[in-house]
């Protein structure tokens, strides 16, 4: 499925340079601080022609800062970036682009109403036309992308959008490609396809920096790996010979957080949530199609599937925010916790403080307020207790929640939602984008509450996570449940097929 790594070891003749495996990018001693926080501390990094280098690190390890320095968005406090031996002027995005450095951002930054070609040429001098379209098609074919140059961007799948974002860089002749967590939004087959393309591009002489959280992906596609921890480079070596455990130890600093052991089985009790033939429509599209689901106390039901197949509707239906248009939802839980996929958009108020966000479910309780008065010290003491219990990375409970990192936000949400000892917990993509330590905390919290007797629904694209946590697994495809498995009869390959809509007939 994945491109063989043999080609990488053989160091093929790169296309763009005459010398084999010449150094194209040399980063020396980059240091960058924001206030007291040192985001990058004397970071060195070397990239050779035709090389795929993984940049690995937890949230807040300094990956994004380093990338911003490389592409000229940030001016480092110290250190130099040189492309083919020539130093880049610091803090100049234009110079970085002119030197051949291009970034594919997580959100792609495309214009939905423009066609593939228009998106590709946007920002260059040309503006469509048949010749340009042909040229775009050639670039796409060379990279192995199957993109219709005339298709509007809104009609593309996530995987195709990503190809388009990469194509934009190729069309400009950029040959140092930085992919910022490209697999976060992809299904496993789409990721495999991306890895194929990356290998093809590298074999063609381009160099790639690949940012990820997933150790397996580093092993699958990268030649070299640079691991950052607290802004410092803690490892810079060949991937061959490293295994996932070693990398994870380097990344988080001890083997304490090495992959959690598979959780024990649950002890299912009475049914707390029951969906019967539930159908939900949104914007004229049938988001959920006659879904049946039963969640018992003391069990974790995992919902596997590639995002966009009804997960969001299922989560909001299960949490009781939307009602079914047909069918029914029965819930006997007195408190329902919801960990939404869109943490900031659905769960938090960015402009309010950490302490206020932690109080969102409790501020009207008599213990915390009177109609004319909120006891703010009680709000603060609740916040301090939860900050401590969930290791929320914040010193002052009054600081704005929007200033937290992804892992910090998720800890705030978990703390708030789980503090009431809910009977039903709906967690959507609960570890997406989180670092290893935060992910481990999320998982152990979910398992802990299950053991306490809560019914838990985990909706996730990460199949490993689903298989590790769940007592039962449902597969969601195009809004319908296309498979159900119990612990002990999980078949990874079959679930993977069904996630992709195969094997259903």
């Amino acid at each position, binding site marked *: 499925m994945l491109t063989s790594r043999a080609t990488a070891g053989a160091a093929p003749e790169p296309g*763009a340079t005459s010398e084999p495996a010449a150094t194209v990018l040399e980063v020396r001693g980059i240091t960058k601080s*924001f*206030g007291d926080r040192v985001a990058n501390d004397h970071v060195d990094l070397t990239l050779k022609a035709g090389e795929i280098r993984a940049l690995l690190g937890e949230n807040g390890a300094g990956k994004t800062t380093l990338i911003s320095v490389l592409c000229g968005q*940030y*001016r480092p406090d110290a250190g130099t970036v040189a*492309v*083919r031996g*020539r130093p*880049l*002027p*610091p*803090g*100049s995005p234009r*110079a970085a*682009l*002119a*030197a*051949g450095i291009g970034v594919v951002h997580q959100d792609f930054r495309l214009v939905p109403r423009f066609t593939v070609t228009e998106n590709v040429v946007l920002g*260059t*001098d040309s503006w469509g036309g048949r010749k340009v379209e042909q040229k775009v098609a050639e670039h796409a074919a060379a990279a192995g992308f199957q993109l219709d140059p005339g298709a509007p961007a809104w009609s593309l799948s996530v995987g195709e959008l990503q190809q388009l974002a990469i194509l934009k860089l190729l069309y*400009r*002749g*950029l*040959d140092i490609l930085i992919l910022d967590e490209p697999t976060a939004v992809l299904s496993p087959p789409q990721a495999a396809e991306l890895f194929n393309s990356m290998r093809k591009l590298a074999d063609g002489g381009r160099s790639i920096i690949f940012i990820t959280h997933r150790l397996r992906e580093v092993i699958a596609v990268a030649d070299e790996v640079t691991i950052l921890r607290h802004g410092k480079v803690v490892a810079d070596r060949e991937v061959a010979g490293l295994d996932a455990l070693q990398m994870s130890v380097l990344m988080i600093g001890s083997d304490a957080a090495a992959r959690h052991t598979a959780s024990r089985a649950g002890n299912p009790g009475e049914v707390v949530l029951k969906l019967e033939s539930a159908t939900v429509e949104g914007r004229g599209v049938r988001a959920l199609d006659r879904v049946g689901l039963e969640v018992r106390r003391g069990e974790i039901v995992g919902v596997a599937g590639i995002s966009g197949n009804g997960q969001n509707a299922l989560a909001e239906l299960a*949490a009781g*925010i939307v009602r079914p248009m047909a069918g029914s939802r029965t819930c006997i839980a007195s408190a329902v916790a*919801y960990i*939404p996929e*869109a943490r*900031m*958009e*659905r*769960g*938090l*108020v*960015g*402009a*309010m403080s950490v302490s*206020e966000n932690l109080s*969102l*479910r409790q*501020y*009207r309780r008599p213990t915390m*307020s009177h*109609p*004319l*008065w*909120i006891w*703010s010290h009680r709000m603060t003491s609740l916040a301090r207790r939860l900050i401590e219990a969930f290791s929320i990375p914040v010193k002052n409970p009054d600081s704005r929640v929007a*200033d937290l990192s992804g892992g910090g936000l998720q800890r705030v949400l978990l703390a708030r939602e789980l503090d009431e000892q809910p009977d039903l917990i709906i967690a959507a993509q609960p570890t997406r984008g989180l670092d290893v330590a935060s992910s481990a905390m999320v998982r152990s919290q979910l398992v802990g509450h299950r053991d306490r007797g809560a019914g838990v629904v985990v909706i996730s694209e990460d199949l490993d996570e689903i298989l590790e946590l769940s007592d039962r697994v449902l597969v969601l495809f195009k809004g319908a449940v296309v498979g159900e498995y119990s612990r002990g009869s999980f078949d990874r390959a079959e679930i993977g097929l069904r996630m992709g809509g195969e094997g259903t007939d």
Partner: protein
Amino acid sequence: MSVSIHLERRLNPPLAMRIAVPAAAVVAGLVAGGVILALGGHDPIDAYNSMWEGSLGSSDGIQASLIKACPLVLTGLAVATALRIGLWNIGGEGQLIIGATAATGVGLYATSLPGPLVLPAMILAGCLAGATWATIAAIPRALIGLNEIIVTLFLNYIAILLMDHLIFGPWADPKAFGFAYSRALPDAAMLPVIPGSYVHVGIVIAVVVAVTCWWLMERTPWGFSVRVAGGNARTAEYLGLHISRRMVIVLALSGAIAGLAGAIELTGVTNRLQDGISVNYGYSGVLIAFLARGRLLGVVVAAFLFATLVVGSYALQTTGVAQPIATIIEALIIVFLLAGDAALAFRVHMTRAPHALEPATAGVRS
């Protein structure tokens, strides 16, 4: 040799900068204004001296500033209150005028009311009228999402025309010879002054309203829920809060505060309904709320400083400086303040690149 300028976001500007930047902005505004004064043939130092004397530098000046601050505190509060739920009330002007109009109606026609009740009845009428005016915008906003900025803005013109209709027609003072004002109100309709001064008690009412609004929004559970709804509607929806209901209540409250400003200006200053009862107080309220960064208690400070500026520019005119020039100086200081506020959010780097880099190889398109 090329110089490149680079902006970077600054998260928390240090306290010293938050004081120094506005101070520098005022100085910059005064310097720029001085150039204009000098061009107009005035001595800037003399001019600024009289400005100071007329606003903060004398007891009369301070009293005039306090009187001017009263409607500005209230219109600023009207805007800042609506902002708590994420709405922009640009209709303070109209709500103020409709409030003054309703209060005038009560003052002119409720003659059977016992004396001590006249003033409270007028003020209540002003608040209710302002609240009603804002609610006209709030209901379509809450139900179908019709933009409240547009509706509140257009309601301003309707309020002005309605007032004009009344003061030129049914309520016109027969002794005014066609000037745009109503009959004078009875003596019982005059706000008392603070003993020992000629400042009416409106400023005290305004400060009390400010503290009450702050308490309501920042210290009660209901205010908390309003801030949640204003901060993130989708989170509020998840928590089961009725956003529409809160929008209507908050905007009505906001309108009531602006209406109160109208009733107070009427009973404290003009004593009759007249064109120019509002000197753009409603619009200045938007600016004041902005300068106060939407903070309810900050509005009191911002409105007072704004009032000193306005009163100072009046004083400038008494020394022979033309009104447009006085207004330009006032505007310059505010523009510099706003620019300074925006600049605070960024860190500026200036670098000299030793040599411009040639485009790299590999067929780069420029």
